[in-house]
């Protein structure tokens, strides 16, 4: 049985820094897809994750509830991802969204192209909307899980997801 987050954090704080690897493995696997989906660039996403893990290590003494390290770490990671996306947002090509993507999908465009269509459209959402949509529809999390990780109420998160869907429907105008 793997040790709990709290046990690992306490061992690391006691000086056994090698134990930190367990947390890195655990949450790289759990949150990696989130970072990739939000940042949309593999290298930048990995950089954001690496920075977040180091940031978390440096601040580990301030983690008030070591048993909830995952939620605490996620907020650091989310901030890193927002920063990366925010810096790049100005450079997004607004013409890149293909409003006819949905129609062409009906004409047998492969899934890679479908995914690329959504990926481009996601870039047009606000960071909060993109984050909420990814957690809900790409990671398949419940609103309760999202609230736990983001520290935001479920009603507010539902509103973000709703607005993200509406915006995506508009951007991907070819949807029936």
């Amino acid at each position, binding site marked *: 049985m793997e040790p709990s987050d709290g046990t690992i954090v306490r061992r690391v704080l006691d000086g056994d*820094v*090698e134990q*930190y*690897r367990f947390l*890195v493995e655990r949450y*790289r*696997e759990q949150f*990696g*897809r989130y970072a*990739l989906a939000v940042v949309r660039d593999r290298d930048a*996403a*990995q*950089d954001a*994750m*690496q*920075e977040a*893990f*180091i*940031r978390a*290590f*440096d601040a580990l*003494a*301030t983690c008030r509830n070591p048993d909830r390290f995952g939620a*605490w770490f996620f907020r*650091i990671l989310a*901030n*890193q991802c*927002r*920063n*990366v996306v*925010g*810096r790049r947002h100005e450079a997004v090509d607004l013409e890149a969204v293909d*409003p006819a993507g*949905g129609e062409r999908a009906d004409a047998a465009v492969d*899934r*890679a192209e*479908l*995914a690329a*269509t*959504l*990926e481009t459209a*996601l870039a047009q959402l606000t960071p909060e909307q993109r984050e909420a*949509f990814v957690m*809900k*529809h*790409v*990671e*398949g999390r419940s*609103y309760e899980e999202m609230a736990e990780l983001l520290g935001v109420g479920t009603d507010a998160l*539902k509103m973000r*997801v*709703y607005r993200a*869907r*509406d915006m995506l*429907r*508009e951007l*991907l*105008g070819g*949807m*029936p």
Partner: protein
Amino acid sequence: MTDRRAFGADAHRYLDGEPFGELSVEERAAADRLANLARAFADRLEPVDAALDEAVMAAVRRRGAVPVGHGAWHWVVSSHRVPVRPVWVAALAAAAVLVLWLAPRRPELSRSGAQRVAAAAAPDTVFVRFELVAPEARSVAVAGSFNGWRTDALPMVRGAAGIWSITVPLPIGEHRYEFVVDQTRWVADPTAHSQVDDGFGGRNSVIVVGPKGLVRS
């Protein structure tokens, strides 16, 4: 031609997997289409490379142990790839040094925002050093609830390697802030543990200054 229709409440409930009412064929198809796009997108996401673990552990080993307190000095002195990174440094020892450093220069700084804040420093304040690595910025300031959100009150000074900094005394308590780059661009603290909506579509970072110099950002 873009589709400006929003999903109805039942379509949202349908997408949430909740009980839903009347749903037109068109609305349901649009919802299914969006869900299908999300699944296709999710399928393309490959796991993050496990090599990340070793890169993190190498950095951790260089540190040797979890820094006592916030450990912000590591962010100042270590090499890193993120071009914009604000850093907090606060400690009683640093405060003592800064008080000594500031004292003889006060006449020269009498018109600066930082000095005005410093003049108001009271026993229940803690010196906090704000830093932002922004090599390409022409100006950087910090604005927050502690200075009335004035963008010109606390201009930061550019140092080596494009590190902008300022040290100000903050009262014990919770404060909200952002950096203002080139007088127009508001930048939240990406390393803050807490951020809140600013009411204008952006995010405010939150810093909590505790007794005995403990600072959480």
